[in-house]
């Protein structure tokens, strides 16, 4: 790093967008297409799936065979970063836990997500009115529906029209057909009273009308590695790169780590300052509008670090709620193998890299008298996967549980030709499931600035305070019981994931499901919300948040589709208000 200096640019952009994930990508796309001159700042490197994807590499092409030594989900996974990043620490209050996953790169966490694309339903937006828990959003499903419809058409999603009350249908491409183990799951779940319907994922099972840049899925099942033909939704391939290509209105600066929002004498946003990770220099850029889409916690961090005379508590934080109401989804998983599938016939069943089937939440905590509010959906997996690091681990816990080819009970473990044959016999028999449920948005669960710690660029870091309540633990217990029943019904042997009250029934720590939202929640009353219903700061009219931060209370649905819908809605509002000179 050279001598310290701050580089200031005189260019005034129509909008500065911080972040290039689902929220930032959508905001940049809409604004650039509306003629705005947009500066997009991304904290990580450039990434184009067409050139940088690890799709279709074989395990044996790498000496580590896919192990996750530098990437949490394996070396072929597209997402950089993880729960721990060198030089970018965060802290937690004693006795609490929150694991913070960050992926600094073009497209952010849309590079590895499961492409599971579920709409929040009417009760998710108005939960308090429905069952008295938490708070209502200031908007309802009918306000967001037109945007869900638009992103369905723009980005592509498969699924089926089911007419379920709180699982709204979209505009769907045909879903992929179920795999063999999924037929077993569906039959077993039905017996347990759990519905199973085709999955809903943003993968192009058919060519997207009017889009020549993206091709139809060729079923390698590797969406998490990023798709070279743009057959699935990533913010890079579907939003940022097209916005650059077709509008010339989007200027992208990568490796730009934003410190704070800069304000003028009246307290309005006038730009942002950032450190460029490549040259180590400090930059200040100007914009008429600033949109934070750095991820729920990163945007909260930027706001809390943006202190001035007009905003002594951090910009837009008159309510003191920036960072509060942080909530992740709950998660419990369990799995094993299906003895009936031993020695199964081989064929290619890679399918799509998202879910082929899932179980939407089927109960009603009021009607069914459950001891926890809201619920969860279930995702399933199994079958033939490309062998990678970890394949065959723990055979000594499996091969003693079933008779051999001659019907004789085997001794667990072993070696030699007989053992070698066991790996073949068990290939493709595994089956597993995971629940993703509603975590409650509580004021007590929050992130704040740690007064004592900075990252390697001198930016004060976040300190987390998060504890599950009994409600989430009871929900986890319900998941355990349901999963065990489904496994039992299909004759599967459970080999992992069984947990009791001693460790909260296997409930994952907050942050592990990577659905954290709520840190800049929207509302009508500036005293108990950070943003208005357009995701606009109550206090700073040209400051907006377009990530998961504005979400008041998450449903049991994965949040990406809602982040996209809200970002599109907010962006259109910015365009309209700018035309009227209201911003």
């Amino acid at each position, binding site marked *: 790093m050279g001598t310290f200096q701050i580089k200031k640019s005189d260019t005034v952009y129509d909008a500065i967008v911080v972040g290039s994930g689902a929220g930032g990508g959508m905001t940049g796309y809409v604004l650039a297409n509306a003629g705005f001159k947009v500066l997009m700042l991304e904290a990580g490197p*450039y*990434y184009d799936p067409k*050139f*940088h*994807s*690890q799709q279709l*590499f*074989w*395990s044996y*092409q*790498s*000496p*580590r*065979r896919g*192990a996750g*030594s*530098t990437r949490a989900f394996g070396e072929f996974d597209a997402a*950089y970063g993880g729960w721990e990043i*060198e030089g970018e620490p965060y802290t937690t209050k004693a006795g609490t836990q929150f694991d913070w996953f960050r992926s600094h790169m073009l497209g952010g966490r849309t590079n590895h997500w499961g492409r599971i694309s579920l709409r929040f339903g009417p009760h998710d937006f108005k939960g308090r009115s429905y069952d008295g828990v938490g708070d209502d959003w200031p908007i309802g499903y009918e306000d967001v529906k037109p945007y869900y419809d638009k992103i369905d058409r723009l980005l592509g999603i498969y699924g089926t029209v089911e007419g379920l009350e709180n699982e709204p249908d979209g505009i769907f491409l045909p879903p*992929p*057909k*179920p795999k063999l183990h*999924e*037929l077993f799951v*569906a039959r077993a779940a039905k017996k347990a009273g759990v519905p*199973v*319907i085709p999955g809903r994922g943003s993968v192009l099972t058919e060519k997207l009308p009017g889009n020549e840049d993206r091709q139809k899925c*060729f*079923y*390698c099942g590797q969406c998490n590695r990023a798709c070279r033909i743009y057959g699935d939704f990533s913010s890079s391939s579907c939003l940022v790169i097209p916005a650059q290509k077709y509008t010339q209105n989007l200027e992208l600066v990568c490796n730009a780590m934003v410190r704070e929002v800069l304000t003028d004498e009246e307290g309005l946003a006038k730009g942002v300052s950032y450190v460029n990770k490549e040259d180590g220099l400090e930059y200040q850029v100007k914009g008429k509008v600033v949109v934070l889409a750095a991820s729920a916690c990163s945007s909260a961090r930027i706001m809390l670090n943006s202190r001035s005379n007009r905003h002594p508590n951090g910009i837009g934080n008159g309510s003191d709620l920036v960072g509060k109401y942080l909530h992740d989804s709950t998660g419990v998983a369990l799995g094993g193998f299906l003895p009936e599938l031993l020695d199964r*016939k081989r*064929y*290619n*069943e*890679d*399918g*799509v890299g998202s879910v082929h*089937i899932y179980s939407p939440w089927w109960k009603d905590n009021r009607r069914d008298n459950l001891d926890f509010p809201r619920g969860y959906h279930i995702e399933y997996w199994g079958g033939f996967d*490309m*062998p*990678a*690091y*970890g*394949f*065959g*681990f723990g*055979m*000594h816990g499996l091969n*003693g549980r079933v008779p051999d080819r001659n019907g004789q009970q085997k*001794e*667990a*473990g*072993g*070696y*030699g*030709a007989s*053992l*070698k044959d066991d790996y*073949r016999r068990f*290939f493709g028999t595994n089956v597993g499931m995971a629940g993703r449920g509603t975590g409650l948005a509580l004021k007590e669960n929050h992130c704040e600035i740690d007064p004592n710690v900075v990252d390697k660029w001198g930016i004060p870091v976040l300190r987390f305070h998060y504890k599950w309540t009994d409600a989430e633990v009871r929900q986890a217990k319900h998941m355990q019981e349901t999963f065990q029943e489904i496994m039992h019904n299909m004759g599967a042997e459970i080999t992992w994931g069984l947990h009791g009250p001693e460790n909260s029934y296997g409930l994952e720590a907050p942050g592990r499901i990577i659905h954290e939202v709520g840190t800049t929640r929207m509302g009508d009353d500036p005293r108990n919300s950070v943003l208005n219903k357009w995701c606009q700061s109550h206090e700073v009219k040209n400051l907006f948040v377009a990530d998961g931060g504005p979400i008041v209370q998450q449903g049991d649905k994965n949040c990406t589709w809602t982040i996209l819908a809200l970002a599109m809605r907010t962006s259109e509002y910015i365009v309209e208000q700018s035309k009227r000179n209201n911003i």
Partner: protein
Amino acid sequence: MNRRKYLKFVGVGSVTASVMWEACQPEAERNGVADNLPEVLEAGRQDFEIERDRRLLGETFFTEHELATIAILADIIIPRDDTSGSATEAGVPEFIEFIVKDIPSHQVPMRGGLRWLDMESSRRFEKAFRDCTEAQRMEIVADIAWPNRVNPGMEQGVAFFNRMRDLTATGFFTSEMGIADIGYQGNQPNEWAGVPEDVFRQYGFDSNDIIR
């Protein structure tokens, strides 16, 4: 990032990294740095990942004696049969050498386990495991290969053999030979049309089971 610029930057960065790294090593333990990486280790990889891989590929962890012992054990666990070759023919010892550098938590259990094995064989036969006859080796293996019937004093050997079995199996079945052996048919463009008709019938499903 521009690829040419990217590689140039990586080149410079890795020289610095290797110098720094060597400076911290005792003379005898110094290793080289790999010059060329396979394509998979460069496409879309971050600078620090590329530097790390070049360093790891240039390092040596196991001694010649340890690696020879690993090779013997690997072929006991996965021998050649009618379908495919043995663990060593599939490159399992090379895989294990790399993976313990990549995942250092394997290092102590593997190194210690190999030494445990040599101590056990020298107790019984006054020789290192690799110098034993096949019958002598199999006598020891018989005492550590069956986790549900363990004689007192053999527990650590069983734990080591479990790890050795896991790493051998993973190394074998993720190799080109192993993937062909196990019959994985995917990782190629195709049209997923659902479960094949004969498989569908084999497991007793009918059209009512098809999820729309």
